[in-house]
């Protein structure tokens, strides 16, 4: 029984103690609240395991402690997705260009507290803008653009070059 407790304790503690999780790997190569292109995976070197090589990857490592974040990326020819992860890589939201329905994917990222602090009239205009709530103050926005053929990878990378992530304050 005690063995079971130790087992569950280690499983539950692991995410907060991990040093090789995706966030820790990305931290040294990404400034906070800005979009950084991530090197494509190769047999010799990859930032993370199991990266899909058919995509160009960019990351906005975010920190909402100073306030909400504005994010935007133009919709690409093939397929673009934006995925949100907490500090311990829990995927809490993801959207792709079809679900976005317009030429740009645009959204505001904020904590629940920040959303509750939005002035009343702002909540009304917020009805036509996408607000994503982050369960944690820090985390990752991962932007991926598909290259349907290997020769289109450069175009996919260029599509991500216009991605923007910046603190509102």
């Amino acid at each position, binding site marked *: 029984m005690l063995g079971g407790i*130790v087992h569950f304790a280690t499983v539950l503690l*692991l995410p907060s103690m991990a040093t*090789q*999780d*995706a966030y820790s790997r990305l931290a040294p190569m990404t400034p906070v609240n800005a979009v950084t292109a991530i090197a494509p995976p190769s047999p010799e070197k990859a930032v993370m*395991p*199991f990266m899909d090589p*058919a995509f160009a990857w960019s990351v906005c490592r975010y920190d909402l402690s100073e306030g909400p974040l504005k994010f935007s990326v133009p919709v690409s020819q093939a397929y673009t*997705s934006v995925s949100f992860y907490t500090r311990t890589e829990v*995927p809490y939201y993801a959207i792709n260009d079809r679900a976005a329905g317009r030429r740009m994917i645009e959204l505001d990222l904020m904590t629940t507290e920040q959303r509750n602090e939005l002035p009343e009239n702002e909540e009304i205009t917020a009805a036509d803008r996408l607000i994503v709530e982050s369960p944690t103050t820090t985390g990752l926005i991962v932007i991926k653009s598909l290259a349907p053929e290997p020769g289109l990878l450069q175009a996919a990378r260029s599509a991500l070059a216009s991605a923007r992530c910046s603190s509102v304050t």
Partner: protein
Amino acid sequence: MRLLLGSLFALAIAAAVGLGTTWLALTQGMAYGGVSIGAWTAWPKSGTPGIDPYARAVVARSGELPVGSGDGVAFYARNDDEGRPLDGRCDVVLSGITPQARYWTMTLYDSEGHLVANSVQRHGLTSQEIIRRADGSFEIMIGSRARPGNWLPTGGIERYVLVLRLYDTPVGVATRSGRDAPMPTITKRACS
């Protein structure tokens, strides 16, 4: 004194059992909570905030990022339809159709999730670039020797993992069987 030694002994056993089973669970990749269709398994809940503690620990330890459910679903195969481990020295054929998705990619990795070096530096295929039959079905030859048609090189590696990722797809946490999500068959042919 004996009571103290006995208690310490019991604690040591508990710690060993606890840590040992954690290590086993994380490295053997327990198929806890997954949906298996043929040789393929997916953990759609891992793309949601409901991701279970084991999957979270695997993710924290490996450094990978699970595919968010609004993005897609990843199916993994480490064995063929007969349950034999996928061996890059043999010829393996993927045949059939995939579940509905705007796009999909099929990627080959080693057991740790690294891409495998090969003569043409090809690591995967996408739904757009493969050659299909008139009815939309396809065959992908996976092996160390080049083949006409759809060929995914293995670089001769002994063990590999195939990851089929469906993007913008109705497949997800509600998927239960091949009726909702028809997956290609995985058949081993000759070994060199």
